[in-house]
């Protein structure tokens, strides 16, 4: 603001270096303390009388760094109770941690080299098909990275006897963007819904006010990710596609037909286009990538050989999501998956894959937010 006003402050050079270091998990810690304060203020939550419980709620280590955002009303009650962890809960905790680690170190980390090479211009490949594959890979990298972290956090908490709500529920299988946001980073989207969207009117005050509330909420969510225009555009694209969806209801009848699954790739492409802006270094790079995506120009597929490892891992990620879809649609598949030996085999294979097929260690993407 000072810069815009033409006032030269040069404050940055006077801030001691140490003061610029942000506390770990500041953003998630802030969300949680805000939700406690607002809920108490609104009379929805009785203030806790145990200060240790309050600080345990704020600093619970599994989710402190990158979520999921836990609500005070959910966790304070659990802190007040004696916890007897059953062997069934422990098994589920181990399963969550194994699957979470698999998502992070096998899928997300093995894709990162390919994606970073593309965005940092370290490869000569540049065609339309190349960028489609890069963006599909990035969609799965960010999903598996964050979903993996959330699963590990939930598993750790569960092992100690706490229950954190689900944070990701296969968002790329959504039939609408509205559904996407009930499956992606659920704890953040419900936080924005409860503390921003509904307080400013939600959808109860008519279509126009509903759309305004939607845009405000989405743009705020974009801003939360960082002070970069790319995040604003990412949020704006989601707001735009969601507004169109809400105004035209183009997918409503389709989602009830027997061809409803065809909506999955359409919604995925909408999210994918938005991800371009989320990942790109600046708007120019993002615009250029979107241009290439939709140019459908002939491409050199040599990258599939150069980045064979990433291609196989991406195919595996797609296959896993497909198997989840099959499980949802087919009772026989769901029953098969419920069998003990299948469960044991999948968890064991996930553990072994984490050992032998882990990618280059990379920081969790959401640690930066």
């Amino acid at each position, binding site marked *: 603001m000072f810069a815009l006003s033409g006032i030269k402050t040069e404050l940055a050079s006077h801030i001691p270096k140490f003061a610029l270091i942000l506390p770990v998990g500041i953003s998630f810690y802030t969300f949680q303390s805000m939700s406690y304060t607002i809920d108490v203020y609104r009379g929805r939550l009785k203030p806790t009388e145990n200060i240790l419980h309050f600080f345990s709620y704020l600093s619970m280590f599994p989710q402190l760094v990158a979520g999921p955002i836990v609500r005070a009303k959910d966790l304070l009650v659990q802190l007040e109770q004696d916890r007897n962890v*059953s*062997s*069934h809960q*422990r*098994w*589920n905790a*181990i399963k969550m941690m194994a699957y979470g680690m698999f998502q992070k170190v096998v899928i997300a980390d093995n894709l990162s080299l390919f994606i970073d090479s593309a965005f940092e211009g370290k490869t000569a490949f540049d065609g339309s098909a190349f960028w489609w594959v890069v963006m599909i890979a990035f969609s799965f990298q960010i999903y598996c990275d964050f979903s993996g972290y959330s699963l590990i956090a939930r598993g750790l908490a569960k092992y100690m006897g706490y229950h954190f709500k689900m944070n990701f529920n296969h968002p790329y299988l959504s039939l609408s963007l509205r559904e996407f946001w009930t499956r992606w980073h659920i704890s953040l989207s419900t936080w924005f819904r409860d503390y921003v969207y509904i307080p400013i009117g939600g959808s109860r005050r008519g279509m126009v006010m509903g759309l305004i509330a939607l845009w405000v909420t989405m743009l705020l969510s974009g801003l939360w990710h960082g002070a970069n225009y790319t995040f604003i555009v990412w949020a704006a694209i989601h707001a735009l596609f969601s507004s169109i969806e809400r105004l035209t209801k183009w997918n409503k009848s389709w989602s009830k037909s027997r061809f409803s699954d065809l909506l999955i790739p359409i919604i995925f492409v909408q999210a994918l286009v938005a991800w371009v802006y989320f990942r790109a270094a600046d708007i120019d790079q993002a615009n250029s990538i979107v241009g290439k995506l939709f140019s459908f120009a002939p491409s050199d597929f040599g990258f599939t*050989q150069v980045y*064979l*490892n990433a291609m*196989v891992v991406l195919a595996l990620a797609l296959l896993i999501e497909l198997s989840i879809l099959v499980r949802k649609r087919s009772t026989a598949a769901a029953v098969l998956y419920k069998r*003990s*030996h299948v*469960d*044991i*085999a999948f*968890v*064991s*294979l996930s*553990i*072994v894959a984490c*050992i*032998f*097929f*882990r*990618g280059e260690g990379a920081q969790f993407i959401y640690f930066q937010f």
Partner: protein
Amino acid sequence: MAAKNKTIATLILSFVLTITLAFTLPRSENRSIMREWFWLSKTYRLSDAELIVAGDSRAYRGIDPSLISDELTSINLAYSAAGFSKEYLDFVGAHFHENGKEKILVLGITPYSFSTSSLKNEHLESFLKMNTFQRYKGLYINPTLQLFEPRTIEDLYPINTSKQSIEVYHENGWMESNELPGDSLRALKGYRTIFDNTRADLSAVSYLISYVDSLHETGALIIGLRPPTSPQMRALEDSLSGFDEHTFKVQFEAAGGVWIDVKDEEFATYDGSHLRPSDAQRLSMIIGELLE
């Protein structure tokens, strides 16, 4: 199945699979672990020998001591950018077998091995400085953990790529190395930069000659050669290094050493400096023939 049994079954299955795969999956090429093992092994584990090869990278890549003689115990104690300093020669000399039948020292002489920077022997020093834990880790822990190093799809299904860089670490201290496709001029630029900033230290040359003289008096056989390199490299070194091979050869022979003249044209390098494996083996056999 009860949840507790599921946990136990998963732990057992994961353990069995992990151990099985650790030994059956193709090994991942983690060169840094193997390279460290190679150098630590050379510095601390090689037993004393009757025949020792000394010098810099042209010697440890270019001479396989076991091909010089299959009767004598032999090791290659050459290091990267090694210089013939007192410390290095003492290190080499301490590795001669006390009760050996023979005492043979093969010196790979390069102009760079008399330069001020090489005389610091930083490569060898870096291993000599390591504490006990670092040595133990590099020699035993890291190579064992390599069984559990992550594999890529390329490790499981190697693809024929036109570009390959090969390094095989032999227990006798020879490093078999090659690059495909080779570039016979690649190393020239680096050496030109080196000799722009450094020259052969004539006092180091004199020290080596006196060392050869004193070793010869103990009954040892000292063989000297300039390991073959590309003709362009030889021309560059002769013109810029300040090292005069002819004068050195005369002094070396006068001190009791045996000099072998090797023709560069008969050998091929992969980078303009180092010999290809087959040429390294041929050179080693030529030295062996001289011994016979």
